């Protein structure tokens, strides 16, 4: 089985090691990984802000790059949803957009639903983890159980978190268009964060926002993308 990795721009720039972890993990599970070099951004920031013209041309570009892939896997829920759910809206009647839509998976979703893997290893034994459900992964892709299952089966303890399914306030351009509201949302979310060793999520944007805000408040916690932890689950 061959998978094309869509790293997405934020992870490429800010969580590069999550990309490395994704490649290692998929290879360890017997999957061949391609990384099409021409890839950049899925166009979500432009799309969400209403700039459809720019979003369209980025979507067409991405379609061209991934159209022949067997599967496209992203370590990001919101970009996966952009390709899966919003490309067909952005490019109505485009058969390629629909075709790609069916082949796109967020990493944990791919592991559980396509590979049928639910047990990676025991590498997270005893780790106390707080899991933030990225909104698009949760509500647009329906990824709720997969990450938790993989983490728990690797021995991690997922700490109860009242606001685990609440939006963190990132929202792409929202975070800079309405910075005060965005920060208030992060603060509310963080005020209920349990004392965990690690905070994780499928989405780089949420993690940047939350870890930045946490740092401003003088709090320190390891914050890493889910992909990194899944590799640790496997490799120990």
């Amino acid at each position, binding site marked *: 089985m061959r998978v094309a990795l869509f790293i997405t721009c934020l992870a*490429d720039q800010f969580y590069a090691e999550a990309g490395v972890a994704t490649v290692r993990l998929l290879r360890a599970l017997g999957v061949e990984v391609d990384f099409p070099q021409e890839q950049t951004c899925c166009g979500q920031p432009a799309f969400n802000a209403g700039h459809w013209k*720019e979003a369209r041309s980025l979507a067409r570009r991405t379609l061209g790059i991934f159209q022949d892939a067997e599967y496209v896997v992203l370590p990001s829920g919101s970009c996966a949803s952009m390709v899966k759910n919003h490309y067909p809206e952005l490019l109505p009647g485009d058969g390629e957009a629909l075709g790609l839509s069916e082949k796109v998976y967020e990493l944990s979703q791919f592991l559980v639903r396509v590979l049928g893997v639910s047990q990676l290893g025991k590498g997270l034994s005893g780790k106390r983890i707080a899991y933030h459900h990225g909104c698009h992964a949760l509500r647009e892709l329906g990824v709720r159980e997969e990450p938790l299952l993989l983490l728990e089966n690797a021995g991690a303890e997922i700490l109860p978190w009242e606001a685990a399914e609440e939006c963190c306030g990132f929202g792409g351009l929202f975070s800079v268009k309405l910075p005060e509201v965005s920060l208030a949302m992060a603060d509310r979310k963080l005020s209920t964060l349990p004392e965990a060793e690690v905070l994780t999520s499928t989405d780089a944007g949420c993690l940047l926002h939350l870890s930045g805000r946490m740092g401003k408040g003088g709090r320190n916690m390891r914050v890493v993308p889910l992909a990194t932890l899944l590799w640790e689950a496997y490799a120990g």
Partner: protein
Amino acid sequence: MQAKAKLYPKEAARLLREKPGVREAVTGATLHFEEGRKKAYGEMDAEALRERAKRVKDHLLTHLDQYLELAEKRLREKGVQVHWAEGPEEAHRTLREIVARHGVKRAVKAKSMLTEELGVNPLLESLGVEVFETDLGEYLIQLLGEPPSHIVGPAIHLSLPEIQRLFHGRFGTPLDASPEALAAVARKVLREAFLTAELGISGANFLVAETGTLALMENEGNIRLSTSLPKVHVAFVGIEKLLPRLADLALFLPLTARAATGQRLSTYVSLIQGPAKEGEEGPEEVHVVLVDHGRTTLLHDLEAWEVLRCLRCGACLNACPVYRQTGGHPYGYVYSGPIGAVLDPGLLGLEEAYPLPYASTLCGACYEACPVKIPIPKLLLTWRKRAVERGLAPTWERGAIQAFAKVMESPTLYRLFSKALRGLPLPQDLLPLLRAWTEGRGPLKPSPKPFHLLWQELKE
């Protein structure tokens, strides 16, 4: 109500800075309602019922002219006087005539968002009529001279100490009076008003076309009094509030209550069938004013019409993490929160309401909560797209997005940008964005090497 939607970003920021208590009060109350909704939805096949409700509303909206005719016919058969109002002017004219004909000096009013939309209170006051809001929350904000902060809980932004201070100033109650004691004071004032008012005003949750029945939901019992004690009752009804059949109430009353407050049914439901007949008690005259005020235009807007399914239950406000930070006031119009962000542009025009579609992270919690499955995130995206097409986006944003798209369209530029992030100067257009980001979150810390370089090392 005068719309101040344009001020949303400023007002939201100001409120967060100056009145942190609002955030606390609103967060607490909405979380409570939201928990109630989730539990109440959990007791039934919510998905199936929401889908059914959506279909009924879609059927109604796609046959609206027929149902409006039927409703008018049935209402008249029951002795109700029916009026049509294109907008506030016509609604006001109708009300002015009624006030003049009956020499109205006092009116009691049930909570209604449509009457806020139409500016009914200022009109009545200008006519020398004393108006009493009879919903307790609505009464509080009337005393304060504020607009509602929430569709269902108008005074959701107030804390108990604020209410205690308000009543202390007005009625001389002690500063530590219990909520029960405060309610008792309000009740005394309102009772007197009920018994002396010549006019009762209400909205309507539903108007059943088949039978001409007005349905009103509440928990306090005051609507019942407002609509039955005064000799004249006027109900303002948005044309989208119709339901085809009486049987539909069996679906919509419980679904609305569950969505709004997590109740299986509201404490009181009034089904109004026209004025009192011989030997009955009740109003001598019942008037229904069917109000358009932009709704027909919205109905013909193929990308935005779904918003008209709205039942005004407020569930989307309770679920919305953006609304929770500020309550409804910064939105600057009657309808706030997620529903306001997609309804206000339709009612006020996008130019007036421009920033509101951006008052969301597109997290989707509103859609999950909505009993009639209004795809709010999709509608937000539609209004944003239009805003950009109409040139409403600020210059810095357009510049930044264009620069961003340029970079992302070319792997070469992207790689340059990647280097720039790690030391070189960044393009001017992106700087204001970066500043806005780092102020609240500290500097951006890119990985030492981007993944696309690490990939070279990973290749087999």
